[in-house]
């Protein structure tokens, strides 16, 4: 885009699903957009969820209108970025202790929300999902899917850059220049020093950190922060996303994603948006809650546990005890040109971007509708659907099997070299988020040092050894939450490889936020 003809300058704070959705919507409307992210894309709440692209069926009874919006958005995302979506399908199963009348309400709610729903014979469902309870008495199929969060966010960020926008990673907002009561500039600090970003408007899309950003804007945004913890099981224990057929709550969902399955979630109100520690009791609670759905769950191999913090704007005078609305909120901070958008879900992130885009456009008196639902994300119109064998297929097709770097996720050396050489990405966690290195059962035990060897080979000045140490410490942090069974053996093996073979010393020092997922 020619900068001289660009529209008003908007800085979007936060590189999660919300911020990326907002930034893309704005750039498609002709704004001059800069996205500022404190860490890497999607290293906060946007990668710390159950991985589902919702059909909306989960909310079919509790909020039918929202359920319909989810279904509409789910279709749009699948069309825009099939390479980041896996069409797993979803099941809602009634188990003996689920309310008997929920099934009929659920079916009616799905139909009202235009969610394709089909009742299945429980015997067929139990035959095709051998891991789940034998006590299923009703079952419904809905088009739930899963999304690869980092893949999608990197596609969105690439599109923003292609259209002339800026994406600043590892830049922290330090202050806003609000001279005269209007947004003038955003001061940020990055790896190469401070920057002043001239701006006509700001959108605060910092998720659980939105309250802190709002304070820098001189505003007070009341958020309720809820931590949700998730257990990561080795392998795909189920073929479809399994939901309990009851009002949406905690502990009711098992999702197959990538090479693993996720069970979640807990829900507890927290004060600190950076809280990602999973307490031992939460692990026990998750196991107890998963047992009725997947009998014998304690004998299954768990790879790690992690947590994310959901931010929801608390409406004024909201009665205590009543669960907060799922829908997002856009707050217009008066005539200053500052906005905060918070809440919502991954599935609706594009719609959230559109809503924020409407607010910003109307602030500048610009009458240009959103194009984010219809404009392809990639110039070539999107790739083919992703599934867990895609990586392996690539390795096979290229006959690069002997150059495999990470066996668990079928990542070969050439793919890593390309990221290092073409995109300048050398930090292991950044490579991990983009390529999935280190996500499998060995949790970085073998691929960690191979990655270090390759990156050191490509750039001898990069502190690969220190990076390897930090990579291992972070992998271990999540893995030691679930140190039992075969995974306890894996942790000891990993310890033997890193300390007794490579000679690395374990060090519990602090590492950058967000890398433990």
């Amino acid at each position, binding site marked *: 885009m020619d900068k001289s003809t660009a529209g008003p300058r908007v800085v979007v704070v936060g590189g999660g699903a919300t911020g990326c959705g907002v930034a893309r919507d704005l750039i498609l409307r002709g704004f001059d957009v800069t996205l500022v992210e404190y860490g890497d894309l999607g290293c906060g709440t946007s990668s710390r969820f159950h991985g589902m692209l919702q059909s909306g069926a989960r909310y079919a009874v509790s909020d039918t209108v929202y359920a319909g919006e989810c279904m509409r958005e789910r279709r749009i995302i699948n069309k825009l970025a099939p390479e980041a979506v896996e069409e797993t399908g979803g099941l809602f199963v009634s188990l003996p202790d689920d309310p008997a009348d929920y099934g009929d309400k659920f079916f009616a709610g799905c139909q009202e929300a235009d969610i394709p729903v089909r009742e299945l014979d429980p015997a067929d469902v139990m035959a095709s999902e051998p891991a789940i309870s034998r006590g299923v008495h009703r079952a419904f199929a809905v088009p739930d899917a899963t999304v690869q969060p980092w893949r999608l966010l990197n596609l969105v960020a690439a599109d923003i850059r292609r259209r002339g926008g800026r994406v600043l990673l590892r830049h922290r907002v330090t202050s806003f220049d609000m001279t005269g009561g209007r947004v003038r500039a955003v001061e940020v600090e990055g790896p190469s020093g401070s920057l002043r970003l001239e701006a006509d408007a700001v959108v605060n899309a910092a998720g659980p950190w939105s309250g802190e950003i709002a304070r820098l804007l001189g505003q007070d945004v009341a958020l309720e922060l809820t931590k949700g913890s998730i257990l990561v099981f080795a392998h795909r224990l189920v073929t479809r996303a399994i939901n309990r057929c009851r009002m949406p709550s905690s502990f009711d969902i098992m999702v197959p994603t990538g090479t693993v399955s996720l069970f979640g979630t807990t829900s507890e109100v927290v004060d600190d948006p950076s809280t990602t520690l999973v307490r031992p009791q939460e692990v026990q609670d998750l196991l107890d809650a998963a047992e009725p759905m997947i009998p014998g769950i304690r004998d299954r191999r768990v790879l790690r546990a992690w947590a994310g913090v959901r931010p929801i704007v608390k409406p004024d005078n909201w009665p205590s005890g009543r669960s907060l609305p799922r829908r997002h909120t856009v707050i217009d901070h008066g005539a200053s040109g500052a906005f905060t958008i918070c809440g919502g879900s991954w599935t609706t992130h594009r719609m959230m971007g559109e809503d924020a885009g409407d607010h910003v456009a109307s602030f500048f008196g610009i009458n240009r509708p959103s194009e984010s639902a219809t404009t392809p994300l990639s110039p070539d119109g999107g790739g083919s659907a992703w599934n867990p064998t895609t990586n392996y297929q690539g390795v096979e097709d290229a006959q690069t099997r002997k150059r495999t770097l990470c066996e668990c996720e079928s990542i070969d050396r050439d793919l890593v070299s390309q990221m290092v050489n073409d995109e300048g990405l050398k930090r292991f966690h950044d490579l991990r988020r983009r390529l999935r290195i280190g996500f499998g059962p060995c949790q970085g035990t073998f691929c960690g040092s191979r990655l270090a060897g390759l990156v050191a*080979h490509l750039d001898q000045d990069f502190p690969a050894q220190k990076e390897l140490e930090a990579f291992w410490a972070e992998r271990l942090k999540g893995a030691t939450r679930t140190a039992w069974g075969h995974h*306890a053996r894996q942790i000891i093996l990993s310890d033997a490889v890193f300390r*007794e073979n*490579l*000679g*690395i010393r374990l060090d519990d020092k602090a590492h950058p936020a967000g890398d433990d997922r």
Partner: protein
Amino acid sequence: MNYDVVVIGTELDGWVAAARLLELGRSVCIAAPGEGSLHYAPGGLHVLGHLQGQPVTEPYAGISALHDHHPYRLAGADRMHAALSWFDNSPLGAGFTYRGGQRCNSLAVTSAGLQLPVLSSCDHQAGVEQVQGNVMTVLNFSGHRDFPSGLLAAEFIRNGERVTAIAVDPPGARTDSVTIANAFDTMDDPGAWFGDLSAVLPGDTDVLLVPAVLGSKRHRDVIAAATRALDCTVLEVPTLPPCLPGIRLRNACERYIHEQAGTLRRGFRVAGMDADQDRVRSVTGSTGQTIDVSAVILATGGVLMGGLEVDSHGKITEPAMGLDACQTQPLSKVGAEQAVDALHRAGIETDEDFRPRHSGSRPWQNLHVTGRNLAHWNPGAEISAEGVAIVSGWLAAEAAHRELGS
């Protein structure tokens, strides 16, 4: 079937115990479900390398800082020294050619370019003293994944050393450590292969560092041939597992057991035992076979090898004999380092003859526990895996021999 001693497990401690008992004239059966963990071992005799995060120079002097019930404290420095000296002079150690006799650690070079304190090591394993200040070349085999030579070279360069990294195709079609080693073992003329290598080797090379894959049986011949062909020092650096130095040690152990007419029963997983009060009478395998015994040495490898099991509540059990495991810290520690430490330090408590408690303060009379099954030590933090295995295995054998009488 009846043996003087059944050794359960093919860990280093089990091999050492069996070798010592055979040497003392006892009949021995080693019963194990599989291969044990020696193929994870990078070579070198690690006795006590780190204490409180600091490198240790004199391991024997360092043991006073360890937990009261640490295996080395149970053994004491004199008995430790007796066990390690025996190993150095035994056919097991001879297969490895430890330099032996030292009381001070030297530093081995790791593939990450770091240093590990080691009491003794093979003469062809790269040590800091041998490489420092020399013109080095780091060799890697193209496609070999398990040797991060880039990291090794970068760390040397960072430390101001003169080093070049080169890569050549491995002998044979495949690129994993074991297949490359087999190719060297079966090569007609290793000297000729290294002769070809000299074409790409920088001419001023003093020391050639190679991944430790130059054979699993003939490695000494291969290294000698390489030294002659290249006219420089050739030293091995251990790879990621599977590690040939550990495999060579395992092979030496197995060869010795066969030579001494010991019995090796693979595929035997102990599922239980029959005892008469404080004496084990027989052990029973998972398929129902029973072996009558006069003494048992439990060398099942701790959590790593399934000798100890951890359940989802964080409770640790010993599945073969049903022994009580000691757990002084909960596994659900907040810091990862503490959680791994708790996992390591859990295990079986024993007396000075490595006999676990039977009832009250009385020990089992003919049952001994060794190696990673023991409580109160941490091989990762201490860099002490081989030392504890040899010391506990050897002393358990001595005690069993004494109990059996003449």
